[in-house]
């Protein structure tokens, strides 16, 4: 929709002097659970080689479809069972955390940098630059994001980095919209006018005066986008246009798990999905909390 957001006033937290800003983080409701989940997943991702009991990409066909250890037929060799070519599910889940983390964070950063830059340019320069960027944003928004991503993935072929670039290229629009709206109101404020009078170039104003003021909003949006991006990556991998096999990605594991679904090999479907949900849930909870803390303007979003 083309209804611009209401003029934003600077958030109270951002206006506080630095020490009190830190104190604001210590108030009640600190999101221990999501932080714990994300830190655990990050540690698993970083130290996957040390933690994972087996090679995630090589299995033995003699060990196909072994159930988790606590079920008859399972063994402590493979705590969470094995898949259709005998690969250890737990090892694949651990290495899968690396894929999800990498794709999630990189895509969010690319989308954030691109969208924030375009949003600032569009909002501050106005005129034809604004028109071009906003019409482009409208067009992008008219394409259903996931469909567009599938479409682009089919063009460039499956690879981890392609997915990062595609998701970045698809999801920048939200940043551009929101940040443009914020810049529109910021540029009418005295500190920007004073900077103009003091002879700052447009570039300096955008970099030194506007960018720091929209950073909070960009961070909140990034956290909220993390969940969306991770689900999108899983969906693309599930459809076979994301991370290529035999790489252990959670979405890919779900696609493989579908082969054993009708035979009742539930662990191949349940565990990767639980991992995705945990990570997305953690990102959403953290995003909600940050939104309230950092940027009251975004509460209605």
């Amino acid at each position, binding site marked *: 929709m083309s*209804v611009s957001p209401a003029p934003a006033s600077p958030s109270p937290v951002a206006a506080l002097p630095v020490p009190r800003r830190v104190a604001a983080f210590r108030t009640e409701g600190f999101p221990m659970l999501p932080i714990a989940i994300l830190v655990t997943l990050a540690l698993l991702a970083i130290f996957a080689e040390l933690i994972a009991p087996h090679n995630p990409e090589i299995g033995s066909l003699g060990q196909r479809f072994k159930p988790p250890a606590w079920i008859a037929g399972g063994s402590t060799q493979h705590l969470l069972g094995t898949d259709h070519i005998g690969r250890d599910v737990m090892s694949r889940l651990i290495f899968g955390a690396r894929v999800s983390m990498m794709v999630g964070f990189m895509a969010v950063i690319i989308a954030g940098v691109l969208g924030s830059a375009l949003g600032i340019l569009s909002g501050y320069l106005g005129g034809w630059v604004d028109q071009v960027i906003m019409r482009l944003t409208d067009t992008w928004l008219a*394409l*259903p994001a996931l469909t567009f991503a599938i479409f682009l993935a089919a063009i460039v072929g499956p690879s981890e980095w392609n997915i990062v670039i595609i998701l970045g290229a698809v999801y920048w629009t939200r940043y551009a919209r929101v940040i443009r709206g914020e810049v529109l109101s910021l540029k009418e404020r005295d500190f920007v006018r004073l900077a103009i009078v003091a002879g700052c170039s447009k570039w300096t104003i955008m970099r030194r005066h506007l960018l720091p003021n929209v950073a909070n909003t960009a961070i909140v949006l990034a956290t909220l986008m993390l969940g969306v991006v991770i689900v999108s990556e899983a*969906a693309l991998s599930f459809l076979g246009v994301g991370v290529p096999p035999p790489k252990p990605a959670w979405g890919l594991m779900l696609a493989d798990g579908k082969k054993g679904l009708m035979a009742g090999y539930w662990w191949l479907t349940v565990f990767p*999905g639980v991992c995705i949900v945990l990570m997305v849930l953690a990102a959403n909870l953290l995003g909600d909390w940050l939104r309230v803390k950092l940027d009251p303007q975004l509460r209605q979003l």
Partner: protein
Amino acid sequence: MRRFVLRRVAYAAVSLFLLSVTIFLFVRVTGDPTVLLVEPGASKADLDALRHELGLDRSLAVQYGTFVRDLVRGDFGRSFYYRTPVLELYISRLPNSLMLAVAAMAFSLLIGIPSGIMAAVRVGGWWDRAGKIFALLGLSMPSFWVGLLLILFFSVYLGWLPSSGSGTPLHVIMPAFALGWYFAAAHMRLARSSMLEVLGSEYVKLARLKGLSEARVIAKHAFKNALIPVLTLAGINLVLMVNVAVVVETVFAWPGIGRLLYEGIAFRDFPVVQATVILGGSMIVVVNLVIDLLYAVIDPRIRYER
């Protein structure tokens, strides 16, 4: 008002133009479709002949010109793969997509509205807290995983529902649930906040002061007004559902538009991909335009905005 309408219509037209160029260009860098269409080991002459037949040997500008001219006439070209007009293919799949979307929407509203209203009426109570958890889960669980879990439970263990395909009303239950799950959570959130706003309004206070029973206040005065934003969102979401169902359609082998697009990409069937994405995008552009205009009619402040 007239200027506002003209401006918004012009924006929508520019969006549609950019959309058609974007899709047209992107689709042509996906690779050569003829390679996938011929038998393996076909001669270069055969390939050239096929390229000529499909019009792929002409310049891009000419191809785009032809594409737009046909588009304006309502001709989306012929599928390279099926060799039938794309519009026919699209229309043959549309009822399936609509049926799935309507079923998913009905489900999401049946869950979302009552639970959202109850959460608002007893705000802070156990129902409200359970609702919050449900909404968080709904927004965090990918639809295709929900679909897989449903298959596991209802098809594999219980054997009650068919795991894939279409044809009977039973086939639509699980795909609709999987697709509607996310939207149920979104509708619940909105129903709750909208109801809370209405319950704090002056006319609800008046209704209470008149001595009406709480049930009557909620049912007669608050409920209907709280419903307006939810139904607006539902209208937008219905269009969205038709266009985001591709993953759910893949899980359940549901023959809708999402599958058509997916197959089109796999076979490099340019006309199919172009038509599906353009028609989907156009639906969204038009819906957004209508909503913008409706808002302007309701709220005059928007009209004078820059």
